[in-house]
């Protein structure tokens, strides 16, 4: 469902973040994007999400050229993609329920739809009893769960997580991985950029390793790094 053909991304400051990348991610896959900082993982995600446009090459989402989308079509692309961030990006003045409901509100959902859907999703991430709590009163792991709930509340085709465990302790990170795995099992494609070697090695999923803007390795059931 996501296809990159010879995609190159050149930033105005001369940095070549992606260098002739070709990649295909199919529906229902669970893909780890690994590699050192500056390898191009975030640029790749930004192109899928159309925060950046490729300088050369084509990036397709469901067969549609992402770069050719008109400005007013972009929001509808983004509604098909759930985003999870390392820094959570929750709204501090809204409580857990409102933060998740917000993602539905921006799509123009009715109050009734929100009231039935949000509790279901909160239950799934195990935060139903904390629905009225504000993000500042939650632990990092709980905040990340809210972020995941917000990302999946609109039933996206893809869930993209950019270093979701970066700010979490190992135990919490494992709980989160179980949640992502569950979400993947229910049919959602999951793409996760990460530095967490132990997690990647233990999960035995497809690993796309990047370095210097190129894909250096792409294997099913792979590990974080071959050399040791």
């Amino acid at each position, binding site marked *: 469902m996501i296809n990159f053909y010879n995609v190159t991304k050149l930033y105005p400051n001369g940095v070549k973040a992606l260098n002739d990348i070709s990649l295909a991610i199919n529906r229902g896959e669970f893909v780890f994007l690994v590699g050192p900082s500056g390898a191009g993982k975030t640029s790749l995600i930004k192109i899928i*999400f*159309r925060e950046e446009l490729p300088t050369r090459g084509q990036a397709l989402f469901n067969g549609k050229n992402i770069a050719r989308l008109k*400005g*007013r079509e*972009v*929001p*509808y*692309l*983004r*509604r098909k993609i759930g*985003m999870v961030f390392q820094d959570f*990006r929750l*709204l501090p003045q809204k409580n857990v329920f409102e933060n998740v409901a*917000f*993602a539905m*509100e*921006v*799509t*123009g*959902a*009715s*109050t009734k739809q*929100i009231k039935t859907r949000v509790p279901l999703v909160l239950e799934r991430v195990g935060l139903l009893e904390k629905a009225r709590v504000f993000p500042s009163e939650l632990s990092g792991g709980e905040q990340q769960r809210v972020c995941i709930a*917000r990302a999946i509340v*609109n039933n996206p085709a893809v869930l993209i997580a950019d270093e979701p465990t970066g700010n979490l302790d190992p135990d919490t990170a494992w709980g989160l991985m179980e949640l992502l795995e569950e979400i993947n099992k229910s049919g959602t494609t999951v793409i996760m950029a990460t530095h967490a070697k132990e997690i990647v090695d233990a999960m035995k999923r497809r690993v796309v390793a990047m370095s210097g803007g190129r894909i250096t390795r792409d294997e099913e059931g792979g590990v974080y790094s071959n050399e040791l």
Partner: protein
Amino acid sequence: MSFNTLAYYWREALQSIARNSWLSAASVGTVAVSLLIVGIFALLVVNTNEFTRGLESGLELRVILREGQSRDSIRNLQGEIQKLPGISLVEFVSKEQALEEMKKSLKNRRDILEGLENDNPLPDAFRVKSARADQIPDLAARLEGMEGVDQVVYGHGLVEKLVSATRWARLAGTGILAVLCLAAVFLISTTIRMSVFARRKEIGIMVLLGATNWFVRFPYLLEGMILGFLGAVLAGSAVYAGYISLVSYIDQTLPFVHPVTDRQTIFMVLGGVLATGLFIGAVGSIFSIRRFLKT
């Protein structure tokens, strides 16, 4: 658009006004002050327009005829004058009528005209009115060149001064109105910019969640329009109350000055103030939000 979305727009706009209550009050105040001046100016312009129109229509030329002309040639001349462009009135004033008018205007000193009936020194004349004041000098020159005309008399110099004065007054009035409106737009856009800036993270998240540009924009547009409208209501009521009391004061102290009092004109000015307030709010917020939405 679902009802919930509409409710969301209003909730967000009102919440943001309440959250930045001091800033909102300040921008309502600045809009009110600007529109107050705009309103006063508009009424001033309306009144001077009315006043100069009154002056212009009061301006007349007196075409003095040569002595001893036949009734026929006078009638011919009247026909010819009537054919000139821009003439709104031609009236023959015989020497007898002229004497009567003079007696009337002198009232209690009419005795000095006693005995003139038999040897009337006043000439026959036409009273001519022009549709537009600025055409009077040209018209006078043409009339002077006509057969049987002795002399054309009008407020020499006064007419020219009046014409240029009213033209400048209108021009300056319009210019100042435009500048004031621009200032109000600037002020409200600053307020909205601060409210947008305070929530730039939220806007960023909305865009990431797939909100359309209009969805992001609308609460701010609404906020700006509410602020502009509130300011306009304040300014409008102040202008209305002030003008009504001014008019009644003028009626008592300066009975020969007639300010514009017909409701239609006043409500048009007030409606204009409200519309300007809404417009200023909308334009101001569009300016501020534009920078934060690029896709």
